[in-house]
């Protein structure tokens, strides 16, 4: 770790964020000036800017941790990973939104400015190392999400979704801010990494054991649980996902969720963090509830966006398994080139990468079909295999990947997460002693719950596949049923990119595994 007490030192390492901030302003200006004359100007500039941002972020992957801006912002491999996810999600969503937003709103340039700034907020969440910066980054993402959810101003469902999202979000962040104020009192500083120490020192918490610590930890978990849609703070998700414009739904289901895990990793998954030693047990219980509720509710949904919303809640549950099992250690590359992989944090990162592609792919297909049928009902997927075989096969692959069937990306995501839990269970890493001498091996039962839930999930994912292949189209006249569905160029390219990535991560997971194993993550993961 390098440390410089010049306030402006490290400005060069802040280049991607500066680029994103300026890009948002440029896109806003272009959107206002060009209006309807060149409707493609704003999204194309957005795409170019995000694309330019990728190498800037990738260059920061240097296996070292540097804390800049007087200890309030950190640039390390963990941050780089989450920034890559954020920028990739932003780019793919821009491609999806290009034609969608043009149809619903003629002056849509400002939408892309909001999207770029939301990506900026996600990047700030990835690198925040100070309670104040964490708070500002989360609020940046939240406020922009509320506005984007209600972007279809005249649509009652969109307006209602933004209201509900806002009210839940405001309360959750108020609770989190209260928790942060207590944490500040306990730690005596807002910095996550001590300024004076030569090595990363997770908040000098060990110095001040206090009864306030568990309260602060739980209150902060409420705010983060809201971001990642963890039960019981998930109530906003189905409503917001259903009412929001579908590209925004796609963005919300990936971006803020991933960034929430980044902050979870920084605040909680730290060696020697005495913030609240029992937090893994608490999160384990919530993870089991999250998986069961998400999958159970998804079975009964008739709206594709609502089904994907509940499925994304369930996926947050799977990721939380890896969070609970984080103590398994880091993934390492051995001398002979083999990779030892049993750490929960790395498993979560792999899961997030695979989830990014398969989920955005599923949403891209859903948007193509929604545009053609004008309706989000799952029943309208009947006969899709005939109306557009490509969309049907793509959707089938994404859903298979989401349900964790090899050799697709989702399988390895689940495999590594469950693997981390089972390894931890073998050591009985987290155990819970109940009255009457009952001893619970938390990680073991967590893995069992994950596997059971994967099986439940197959039911509703495959229901869509069944409709597409074995049911005739309903609610259409003969002419309409024959009518082919042609997705827009942007949506098509997203489907192809995500298909390739889903296959690549499934067939060659070693590439990403090696990338993660070679990365160095803070917090004494060894």
């Amino acid at each position: 770790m390098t440390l410089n007490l010049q306030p402006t030192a490290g400005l060069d390492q802040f280049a991607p964020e500066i680029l994103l901030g300026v890009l948002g302003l440029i896109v806003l200006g272009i959107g206002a000036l060009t209006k309807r004359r060149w409707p493609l100007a704003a999204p194309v500039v957005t795409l170019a800017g995000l694309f330019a941002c990728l190498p800037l972020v990738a260059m920061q992957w240097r296996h070292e941790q540097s804390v800049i801006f007087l200890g309030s912002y950190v640039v390390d491999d963990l941050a780089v990973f989450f920034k890559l996810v954020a920028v990739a999600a932003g780019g793919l969503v821009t491609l999806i939104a290009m034609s969608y937003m043009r149809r619903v709103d003629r002056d849509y340039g400002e939408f892309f400015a909001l999207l770029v700034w939301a990506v900026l907020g996600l990047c700030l969440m990835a690198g925040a190392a100070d309670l104040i910066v964490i708070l500002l980054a989360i609020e940046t993402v939240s406020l922009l999400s509320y506005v984007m959810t209600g972007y279809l101003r005249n649509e009652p469902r969109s307006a209602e979704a933004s209201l509900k999202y806002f009210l839940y979000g405001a309360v959750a962040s108020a609770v989190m801010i209260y928790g942060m104020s207590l944490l500040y009192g306990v730690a005596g500083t807002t910095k996550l990494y001590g300024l004076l120490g030569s090595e990363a020192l997770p908040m000098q918490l060990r110095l001040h054991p206090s009864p306030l610590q568990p309260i602060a930890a739980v209150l902060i978990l409420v705010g983060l649980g809201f971001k990642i849609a963890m039960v019981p703070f998930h109530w906003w998700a189905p409503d917001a996902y259903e009412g929001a414009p579908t590209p925004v739904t796609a963005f919300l289901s990936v971006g803020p969720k991933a960034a929430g895990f980044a902050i979870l990793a920084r605040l909680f998954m730290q060696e020697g963090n005495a913030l609240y030693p029992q937090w893994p047990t608490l999160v384990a219980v919530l993870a089991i509830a999250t998986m069961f509720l998400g999958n159970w509710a998804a079975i009964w949904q008739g709206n594709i966006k609502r089904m994907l919303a509940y499925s994304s809640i369930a996926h947050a549950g799977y990721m939380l398994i890896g969070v609970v099992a984080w103590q398994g250690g880091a993934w390492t590359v051995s001398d002979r080139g083999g990779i030892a992989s049993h750490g929960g944090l790395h498993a979560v990162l792999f899961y997030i990468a695979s989830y990014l592609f398969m989920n955005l792919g599923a949403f891209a297909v859903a948007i193509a079909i929604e545009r053609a049928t004008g309706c989000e009902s799952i029943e309208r997927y009947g006969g899709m295999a005939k109306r557009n075989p490509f969309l049907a096969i793509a959707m089938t692959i994404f859903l298979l990947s989401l349900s964790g069937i090899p050799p697709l990306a989702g399988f390895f995501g689940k495999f590594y997460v469950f693997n981390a839990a089972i390894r931890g269970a073998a050591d009985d890493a987290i155990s819970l002693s109940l009255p009457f001498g009952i001893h619970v091996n938390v990680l073991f039962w967590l893995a069992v719950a994950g596997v059971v839930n994967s099986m439940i999930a197959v039911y509703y994912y495959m229901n869509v596949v069944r409709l597409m292949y074995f049911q005739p189209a309903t609610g259409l006249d003969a002419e309409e049923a024959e009518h082919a569905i042609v997705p827009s160029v942007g949506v098509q390219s997203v489907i192809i990119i995500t298909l390739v990535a889903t296959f690549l991560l499934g067939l060659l997971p070693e590439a990403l595994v090696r990338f993660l194993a070679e990365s160095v993550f803070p917090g004494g993961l060894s």
Partner: protein
Amino acid sequence: MVLQQLGLQHFLALSAILFSVGLFGVISRRNSIAILLGVELMLNAANINLIAFQRYLAPPAGLNLVLDGQIFALIVITLAACEAAVGLAIILNVYRVLRTTTADEVSLLKW
């Protein structure tokens, strides 16, 4: 004189009460604007905490971070203003479209 007898715990108790009042308002009120007011109370409870901790638990000398709590509180105040601005815009839009701001009556989206 009175101020000298006040300890940190008094401020923490005050903020806990304020937080609970705000949370109660959020849960019991049905009007969106009243819920927003409850949220503001919760945020101000956090501010009282921050300022009180700043005053009573100044970090060890040499760390040179003595203003953390004050700055945090200022930023929370600013955030509350931003949140109110965005929130009122959303509520206004909901009123324009649905002719109500009562959270119960806004129920197109359900299970």
